[in-house]
């Protein structure tokens, strides 16, 4: 147990860093938990900024109409227009609608009435056009039918939409619960990877320095015992982190756990931990240089996270990226808990892939380790 204890002692030296790492994770996770959806179908609200220079009955009615289904913020003329455009650039806001001061004259002259600034390449732009046109088409139609237009009444008419029904087989509450938890677990998977590669990488680089390893190599301790103790110590740390994160997730979402395949999520986290440790084993056999360890750890963790759809949804990535993703273990990690009601049969394939990856890296690590021993 000497090696086992000494590795754990080494980890203890990093306790504050580990604490910072875990705290940072939960701060982000708490941020995610704040925007969980409702219980039934809700249309996608546009995020709009409106500059009303007209301040007329029509413009007020227009804003009321827009506000009924969308998130509308009326901003005054003095607002920094650049900042509003930046929100579109960053994808925070869907568009800006500027109502000119001569709105009524423009309508009378059949000239374009309002200015819409949005990304014309996106579907949100289509929806803004739809919504804006609908109001003015009705306004014009009302005006041409009767001389007096009651805006309030018109808005009431426009608010009367078709009933939208969510198919009975869809459980929105469970879906929301699942969608939060699956994001949480994917993020936890990424974080565990980064955590283990950086912390374990640095702890073990100290432990793997040539002088220390030579001492261990010449001791009567068999290589197998050494390996078992090293792997056990790392596994203990890994399992501690996995349990801590999963338990933290359960605590954050207490009462919203229906429809979540928690056991499969736990299995997925344990597997990704083993996989990360096997990668680390390969890195450890290759180098003890802290720059290379940190660089590789970052690249692998971030790279895998990106390519597996944890950071940016896979659907919006290019085809090449999507194809590559299918060959990466982190993608299969997410597939273990891909659906709320996923069966063990469906989970077994991705589980097998991650296990095979882990085994492959362990074998590569062993080969490299043996080569290193022979070379030294």
């Amino acid at each position, binding site marked *: 147990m000497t090696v086992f204890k000494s590795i754990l002692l080494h980890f203890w030296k990093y306790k504050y860093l580990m604490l*910072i*790492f875990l705290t940072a994770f939960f701060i*982000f996770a708490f*941020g995610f938990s704040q925007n969980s959806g409702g219980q039934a*179908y*809700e*249309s*996608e609200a546009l995020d709009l900024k409106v500059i009303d220079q007209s301040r007329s009955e029509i413009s007020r009615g227009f804003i009321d109409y827009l506000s009924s289904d969308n998130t509308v913020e009326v901003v005054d003329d003095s607002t920094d227009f650049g900042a509003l455009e930046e929100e*579109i*650039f*960053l*994808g925070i806001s869907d568009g800006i609608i500027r109502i000119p001061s001569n709105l009524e004259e423009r309508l009378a002259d059949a000239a*374009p*009435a309002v*200015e819409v*600034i949005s990304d*014309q*390449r*996106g579907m949100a732009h*289509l*929806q803004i056009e*739809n919504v804006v*046109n*609908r109001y*003015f*088409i009705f306004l*014009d*139609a009302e005006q*041409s*039918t009767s001389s007096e237009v009651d805006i309030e009444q018109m808005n009431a*008419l*426009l608010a*009367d*939409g*078709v009933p*939208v*029904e*969510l*198919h009975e*087989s869809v459980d929105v509450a469970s879906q929301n619960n699942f969608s939060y938890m699956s994001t949480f677990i994917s993020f936890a998977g990424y974080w565990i990877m980064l955590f283990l590669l*950086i912390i374990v990488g640095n702890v073990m*680089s100290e432990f793997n320095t040539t002088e220390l390893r030579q001492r261990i190599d010449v001791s009567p301790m068999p290589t197998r015992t050494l390996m078992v103790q090293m792997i056990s110590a790392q596994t203990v740390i890994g399992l501690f982190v996995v349990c801590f994160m999963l338990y933290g997730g359960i605590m954050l979402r207490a009462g919203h756990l229906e429809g979540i395949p928690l056991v499969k999520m736990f299995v997925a986290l344990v597997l990704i931990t083993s996989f990360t440790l096997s990668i680390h084993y390969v890195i450890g056999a290759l180098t003890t*240089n*802290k720059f*290379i360890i*940190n*660089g590789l750890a*970052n*690249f692998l963790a*971030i*790279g895998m996270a*990106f*390519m597996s759809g944890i*950071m*940016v949804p896979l659907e*919006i*990535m*290019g085809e*090449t990226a999507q194809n*590559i993703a299918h060959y990466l273990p982190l993608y299969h990690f997410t597939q273990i808990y891909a659906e709320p009601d996923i069966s063990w049969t469906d989970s077994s394939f991705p589980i097998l892939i991650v296990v095979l990856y882990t085994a492959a890296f362990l074998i590569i690590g062993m080969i490299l380790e043996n080569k290193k021993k022979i070379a030294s």
Partner: protein
Amino acid sequence: MVILRMIRYLISINFKDFGYWFWTLCYPLLMCGLFTMTTSSMGGTEIEDIEVGIEPGHPVTEVLGTIDFIVLTELGESEAVDRMKAGEMAGYVHGSTELELLVTETGINQTILQSVLDQIRNVSASGIPFQNFDYDQEYIIPNSQNAEPETVLFYALISMISIYGMFSAIEFVSTVQPNLSLMGARFSASPYSKYKFLFSSVASSLLLNVLSNTVVLSAIAIFYQMSLFTELWSTLLLIFIANMTGIGLGLFIGLIPGINANIKTTFAVIFMITLSFLAGLMGPEIRTIIGENMPWLNTLNPLARMTDTMYRINFLGNYSDYLPTIGLLLAYALLLFGVTLLVLRRKQYDSI
């Protein structure tokens, strides 16, 4: 001359370390490749037609068929549900007496479809003669502002590599402190001025990092064909100043007593990744969440400030926070250099 010689040696010490180059050159290049691959289709989203199912013989079939972005298919409900669950169809229009929409999920396509159906319903409910609705009238003065949140990833990456000088600075400070390295004892016992050493450390870190930054930026421009810098010189000045801030941070971290250079580097990596993460390196949403909930964090985070300023000047032509950002980065740098000098000056140790 003395300083130049010192700079040459300090550069040489780092230059011969493969790990240093891996971290400062290979890693950012790999990341760029990754970002390019994953975000290549993010910016170029196009308006796609919406697949809609409809009950065979439904009265609104004709009207819906005239809308150019809707592709209509007549089919039964169960088949429609299957296709909706497979993500091939946005919604199913049915209802004999009343127009109804059946969906299996929430999304922008469903919302657009709902909005179209609402309009059909409103027209028939209004009692206004159909000919009074002028669908050809243009009500909108269109103006475009492209949404390119993915560029935040690249700018956050560039911001991150701009402060990489911190790693060589950590090494240099550790080298010069007798309680941290053996060379430090030799160094401290010599008459070589601490000011000169600090200056040489800063200059060599700066030269090394500016060199690796140049390679990375050139690679982004040449290999990945990205035009991130419409305002090249202003951006380069910003990167240069950020290099100073990074070095200042490295010197400061290097001064932390009682821990060795390895732990300091690990700490610096985690600190830098956190700052980059908050600035949007792993996706622009985080940056937005921070901006909404803790705007002060974005204001103080040098990487977030730099990322924001870079896309503002290059994509939005907005220079309003350029000088404040440079000011903040310089202030950080000067403050950290000052603290370093103060601590190193007349430094004697209780134990070595």
